[in-house]
């Protein structure tokens, strides 16, 4: 057997699996998005753009997703960065690993269980009851956009900390000393040295979190209580409740299209930032 034939044989099973379980189903979604709903639910073959024309009917779901997913990503970044910095730059080697593992451990446990804990905290007997004892009354937290935002930041924070930590850890600490020796203010050092050097970690973290948030269903389902819902919640409704496969497929295609466009634009922006950094004079 030639080496070429052997390599083909090695990738064949995985390739076939991906074709049958990924390419075929996605193609079905694409085809169905031009179809019509059968009277009893399901799908009737057709070629119409009606489903796409109908997309504005689910405008709120797209709007919520497109506001809360980027906002959640940004909040996670703002909370994660100082922590990653503290761990990578200011913590002794002895504690580093342990503290990093402590950040990652929650991510390895079920996001479902971690999210529903917030129903207790934000629900009537949790934080609102606590606020009442200090005189702030009638605060409603659960089933608000705020609750969903807290849930998504909480759920995906570890995923943001890790890549930023890795990029800051790789940063040569002597650069920071050099910058200080040359008389740079710590703030200047941060913005001229540390931040640019960790841009790849920030980019990776934001991309991971953003992609996962765009398809989120569980957190809005648990903490949004039907009032704050994402495209994911609309999809569950369309496929499992109203069984409108054609329209649901169009919504799914739209979601994928939005993700493709934003991720592509984002990657282009990041590579531009990297090019600028390389062009800039060293100090």
């Amino acid at each position, binding site marked *: 057997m030639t*080496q070429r034939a052997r*390599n083909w*044989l*090695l*990738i064949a*099973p*995985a*390739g076939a*699996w*991906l*074709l*049958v*379980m*990924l*390419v*075929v*189903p*996605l193609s*079905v*979604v694409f085809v*169905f998005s031009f179809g019509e709903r059968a009277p009893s639910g399901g*799908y009737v073959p057709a070629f119409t753009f009606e489903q796409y024309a109908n997309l504005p009917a689910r405008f709120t779901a797209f709007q919520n997703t497109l506001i809360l997913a980027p906002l959640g990503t940004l909040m996670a970044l703002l*909370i994660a960065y*100082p*922590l990653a910095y*503290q761990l990578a730059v*200011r913590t002794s080697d002895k504690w580093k690993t342990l503290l990093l593992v*402590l*950040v990652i*451990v929650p991510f*390895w*446990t*079920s*996001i*479902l*269980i*971690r999210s*529903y*804990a917030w129903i*207790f*905290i934000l629900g009537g*007997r949790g934080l609102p009851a606590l606020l009442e004892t200090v005189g702030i009354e009638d605060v409603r937290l659960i089933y608000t956009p705020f609750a969903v935002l807290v849930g998504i930041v*909480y759920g995906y*924070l*570890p995923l943001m900390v890790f890549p930023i930590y890795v990029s800051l850890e790789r940063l040569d600490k002597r650069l920071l000393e050099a910058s200080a020796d040359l008389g740079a203010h710590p703030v200047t050092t941060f913005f001229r040295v540390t931040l640019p050097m960790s841009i790849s970690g920030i980019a990776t973290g934001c991309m991971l979190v953003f*992609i996962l948030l*765009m*398809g989120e*269903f*569980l957190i809005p389902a*648990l903490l949004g209580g039907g009032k704050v819902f994402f495209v*994911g919640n609309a*999809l569950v409704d369309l*496929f499992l409740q109203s069984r409108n496969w054609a329209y*649901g*497929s169009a919504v*799914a295609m739209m*979601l*994928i299209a939005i*993700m493709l466009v934003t991720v592509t634009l984002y990657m282009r922006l990041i590579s531009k930032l990297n090019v600028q950094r390389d062009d800039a004079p060293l100090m």
Partner: protein
Amino acid sequence: MRLYAFSVYVFLYTPIAIIALFSFSAGRSASQFEGFSVQWYGRALNNPFVMDALGNSLLVAFISATLASVLGTLAAVGLQGIRGPVRAFFDALIYIAVMIPGIVIGIATLIALVTVFDVVNPWLARMWSNESAPPSLSMGMGSLIAAHTMFTLALVVIIVRARLSSLEGALSEASADLYATPFATFRQITLPLIAPAILAGFLLSFTFSFDDFIIAFFVAGSETTLPIYIFSSIRRGITPEVNAIGTMVMVASLVLLIIAQLILRRGDRPRR
């Protein structure tokens, strides 16, 4: 800064602590602590629905992680020697598998398989001449395993390939120069070197499959996995029993993670 880091840890662990605390509550209310008791653990462990869901989850996670590790490793090794359009196509598939949201994978698999089954089942029935009921395909454990394997396979390819590309070709070349067959080289040189990556891929796949709610929600048919059971319990109203299940799941994942770390470290040491 230290205070800040500390408060982030408080943020990360308070919800987990609350679930663990309430799971020991004696009362029926899930949000008020009424004395210490472990009764809910007993109830959860004696609840046939919980145990059934747990069994399904473990079975699906084990089979799909095993399949994904084997197929993913083979593919990662094969891809090393492949260039050109086939390689680009395969890379694109892996990229799509990882980037497409789980919910879209769930609905796509659901409508594709249901459509295929609707075509195949009457056909199967016609071929079945016996008196006994004809076999019919439906959504269930099989479709769930197939869907989880698809996604976790992509994860294994990414992890194992990263390890393979960090290896130096010199060892394999030396082995070939010493007249080892390609298979012997793979078994004696490459496989031991990439074993930690395969194990990491297996564990990641297992955890993903065990924790996955959204794909299973669409693809599992009438079968219940543990996340599906927990989700529907929450919908009916949280009880301390759900908290007890959640606590046990978290402790079990933690133990698994620690064991994995120990194995990975031991596997790494003699070779460095």
